């Protein structure tokens, strides 16, 4: 997906995990994914460089579709679609 496409996605759930470091954002993502439906899109905001790499790995294991990451100033917006 291009950056433009990522920005235009219809996000169902936004998880702001900028206040925690590894493995905090992963934990918050896990908690939040239970609240949305299959096919819904979730974004995770994280200031943590490790989380940017970890979330795609987590998606791979859980079967969620990792869509891409947008780099904002000072944090990342990581997008995924629930399995």
């Amino acid at each position: 997906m291009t950056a433009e496409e990522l920005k235009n996605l219809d996000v169902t759930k936004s998880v702001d995990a900028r206040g925690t470091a590894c493995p905090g954002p992963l934990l918050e993502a896990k908690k939040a994914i239970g609240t949305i439906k299959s096919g819904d899109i979730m974004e995770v905001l994280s200031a943590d460089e490790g989380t940017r790499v970890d979330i795609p790995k987590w998606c791979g294991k859980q079967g969620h579709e990792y869509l891409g990451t947008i780099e904002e100033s000072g944090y990342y917006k990581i997008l995924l679609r629930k399995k």
Partner: protein
Amino acid sequence: MENDLNARLLELQSQIEMLKEKVETLESRKKDQLSIAIVSGDLDKILAAMIISVAAAAMDTSVKLFFSFWALSALRDKKKKVEGKDFISKMFGFMLPRGKNRLKLSKMNMCGMGPLMIRYLMKKQNVLSLEQMFREAGELGIEITVCEMSMNLMGFKPGEIIDYPNLRFAGAATFVADAGESSIQLFI
């Protein structure tokens, strides 16, 4: 000649069946599970063990922790006091850190300055504290097994161990059995 071939075929068939069975049992033995034997009682090592455990649990991997020897210090509840200890047990209890907030660093401890600095940095960079990490671990269903033998050796009593939802006392065989069926095994 044909009979020979048929016999050979039958033999191969039975061998394949046997192998299939073996593979199935081997596959079913390896669960999506992480087992860690935690022996060290240093702040940095307990921290590493808990971070890996919480990350694994967040990925829906079941986690089983086996606390033994020096690591028992991390499970002491500083508010709980028990009676009826002998002299050596009392000395051990006195000399070892009373709970996870009193642990030392394996390097750069500097009479307690190191742990203070680490805690300060962790707070500043929003890393979950050990206290929070244990709470999350409990909520995620991470199992803690306390080595009974080390407990006796160091004179700790079940009454001075922290309140934790999935905690049990057992022996080394429990770890061996748990680790045997885990796809990841670590020793810290």
